[in-house]
């Protein structure tokens, strides 16, 4: 299969513009975070109610407040629109890459990172529809932008077919699920870190939403991501049985995937364990996310194992 150079360069363009859109969106979120005080106060009030009473209060559009603080609100909305625009371009970039190479567009580290970031931002947009945490966008987009920069500049790989070991429908299944799971946990990872900031240093974090809301967002997103990540690991094991001759062999990537899995399992359990809720659970969640990042960068770039398909 020949690579279609033109499509591949369109794909690169889309990637770049998407990243640019995220940067601008991040600045807008930042503006809202900084100047949207009235709204934030209102939000907090509503959340306190939401935490105790029925949660559906939280879902309702805050019509009255919109009028009350026009500018920051408008900027915030603009930021969301820009994020959506970025996501569309980002998605287009992946599709074009897939068309250019005639395979699933996640066969090396650059492409994997791109998919992961797309899922992360997508997850964020879904969270936004459920919780009034829009002004936190800056904290979610920041790591995404860093990842996209590292991916697009330092780890960029020209579009090419994949080597024989990756020529399997399992590439579609395994890597897609793993990237989805990993991308989704970026949001709770960030939110749990903010939670810790909120409860440990409340004086610095007056502009963050209520700790309860942060906890909810982190938990509910992780609850979705965890089974997907687990499935991704199982798919990996099935593929490994077909490709490497055994379903599990403590290859570095497998080991750290296992470690991250255990940490997330511990997170979900900790929420059911007295004395571990809240702060300690949030620490575990942040550790889990750190394990994911470690797996992505350290294991791919520093150690060598069977998973060294990264092609960097």
């Amino acid at each position, binding site marked *: 299969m020949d690579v279609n150079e033109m499509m591949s360069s369109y794909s690169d363009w889309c990637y770049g513009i998407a990243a640019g859109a995220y940067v601008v969106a991040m600045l807008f979120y930042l503006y809202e975070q900084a100047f949207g005080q009235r709204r934030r106060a209102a939000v907090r009030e509503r959340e306190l*109610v939401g935490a*105790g*009473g*029925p*949660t*559906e*209060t939280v*879902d309702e559009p805050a019509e009255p407040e919109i009028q009350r603080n026009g500018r920051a609100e408008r900027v915030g909305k603009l930021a969301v629109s820009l994020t959506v625009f970025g996501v569309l371009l980002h998605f287009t970039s992946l599709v074009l890459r897939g068309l250019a190479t005639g395979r699933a567009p996640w066969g090396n580290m650059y492409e994997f990172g791109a998919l992961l970031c797309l899922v992360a931002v997508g997850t964020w947009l879904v969270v936004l529809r459920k919780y009034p945490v829009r002004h936190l966008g800056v904290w979610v987009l920041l790591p995404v932008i860093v990842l996209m920069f590292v991916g697009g500049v330092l780890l960029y790989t020209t579009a*090419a*077919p994949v*080597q*024989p*070991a990756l*020529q*399997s429908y*399992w590439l579609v299944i395994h890597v897609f699920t793993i990237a989805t799971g990993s991308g989704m946990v970026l949001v709770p990872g960030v939110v749990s870190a903010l939670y810790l900031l909120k409860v440990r240093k409340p004086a610095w974090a007056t502009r963050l939403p209520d700790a309860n809301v942060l906890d*909810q967002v982190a*938990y*509910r997103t992780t*609850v979705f991501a*965890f*089974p997907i990540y*687990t*499935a991704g690991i*199982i798919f990996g*094991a*099935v593929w490994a*049985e*077909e*490709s*490497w*001759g*055994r*379903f599990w*062999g*403590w*290859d*570095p990537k497998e*080991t*750290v995937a*296992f*470690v991250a899995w*255990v*940490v997330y*399992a*511990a997170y*979900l*359990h*900790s*929420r*059911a*364990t007295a*004395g*571990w809720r809240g702060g300690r659970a949030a620490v575990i969640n942040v550790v889990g996310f750190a394990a994911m990042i470690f797996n992505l960068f350290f*294991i791919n770039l520093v*150690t060598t*194992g069977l998973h060294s398909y990264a092609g960097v």
Partner: protein
Amino acid sequence: MTAFLRNTWRGLTSMRTALVLLFLLALAALPGALLPQRSLNSQKVDEYIASHGWWGELLGRLEFYNVYGSVWFSAVYLLLFISLVGCLLPRTFEYAKSLRAKPVLTPRNLARLPHHHETTVDATPEQVMAAAKERLKGWRMTEREEDDGARSISAERGYLRETGNLLFHFAMLGLIVALAIGKMFQYEGQVIVLANGSQFCNSGTLGYDSFRPGLRVDGTDLNPFCVKVNDFTANYLPTGQADYFRADIDYQSGADLETNTWRPYQLEVNSPLRTAGDRVYLLSHGYAPTFTVTFPDGQTRTHTTQWRPVNQLTYLSEGATKFDPPGVTDPAERRKRQLAVTGLFAPTAVFSGDLMDSGFPDLRDPAVAVDVMRGDLGSDSGRGQSIYEVSQDMVDQGRLKRVARENMRPGDVITLDDGTKISFDGVQRWVYLQVSHDPAQGWVLVFAVLLVLGLGTSLVIKRRRLWVRTVPAAEGGGTVLLLGGLARTDQAGYGEEFGRVTEDLLAELAPSPEREDAVAGREP
């Protein structure tokens, strides 16, 4: 003493301990990703120890190069297992009991619950109760008469959560057991086979270049099958990137062995051969140059020995093809005249001056750059030696001497001082096959899938309660309807469902317009 045992058991089976053990397991697994492991790469372990002195040796003694077989890793694993069992037994009993239990009594004051609603409807209490029961179909319900003339329904839903939870934990147990069984009865062996119609049969461990048996495998009753490698094709893109590898093989197993029937198969990287309960994988490949030695007395010997790739991108390979002089019975005499052709092979040779390198992994312009060594190869010494090298000891002792150094293309001939002629005839390919056997791996998959299903169920489904109380209204007839809701685990999202139930119920009871407002104003 029994108190101590009981406390230990309680401590071990508590949720908190399970958490800590989970963490310990993760922590214990981590060194395996950071330090070289014997089972993956023994040579790297030796290098690591050599370069880290006493520290490296200490790590070795503490089994850090064999993490997953170490005493401490197994200890955590075992404790977790015990903790799981201890946690599961009582929960299973509780679960069985709760299957028959009735939803709990309606609390006195429903207004104190996180979700609640109160309104007055025209319908009679009987009608309201009937409508509520209709709406709460699918919930487990009990109806109660209360002291003061009120009636109530306790409804509960989401019992599947606990089912999922138990399934998850049992699946984890099953997974651990299946893994252990696998560890006992599995085996794995690797072998190099020339792709020129050579055969390999899974009849004993001796046929393998390396073999790793499970704890209960002694290698005497491997599943019998044979494989014949007819040909190997590698296709590369112009950039040198591999496109596909394919070994064209025949195999026989079971009844085919008696009738000597061969069945064809295309062995590729992602499509192993599954036969006779074993799997055969194509792991890698390489080149085997063919050399013919014509001795001064006219006798010839032809050997095709595998050489190993030293560069995975260009397949520059190294090796040593060794010859015994024919018809020499006196060992001392033989040890003076053994020959080895050793050096480099390039599938696509590029020369800079006399130095040869390979420019491409495929066979475009093969050549070798070899030294011919004569003397004592050391093969009689009883010590095993690498098939890819000549004994450096013998070279150092001056018992093995270089008698020629040449770059050769197929057809080229070297003539030695004593009239011996060595010709480079051509090259064949070899494949590196792995045979694996693990009778429990299907079970591992089954349990893993159950594990995810159980987990998903227990995370998505919420155990939740809903209470309905009807009290005859004081004046003007009608009924005061009180609703209360509580999710037993995570509150998030239950509000929506509670709201839906409330709305449906009120719509059913056809409230008057003013009460419609009451519904809309339900939010505090």
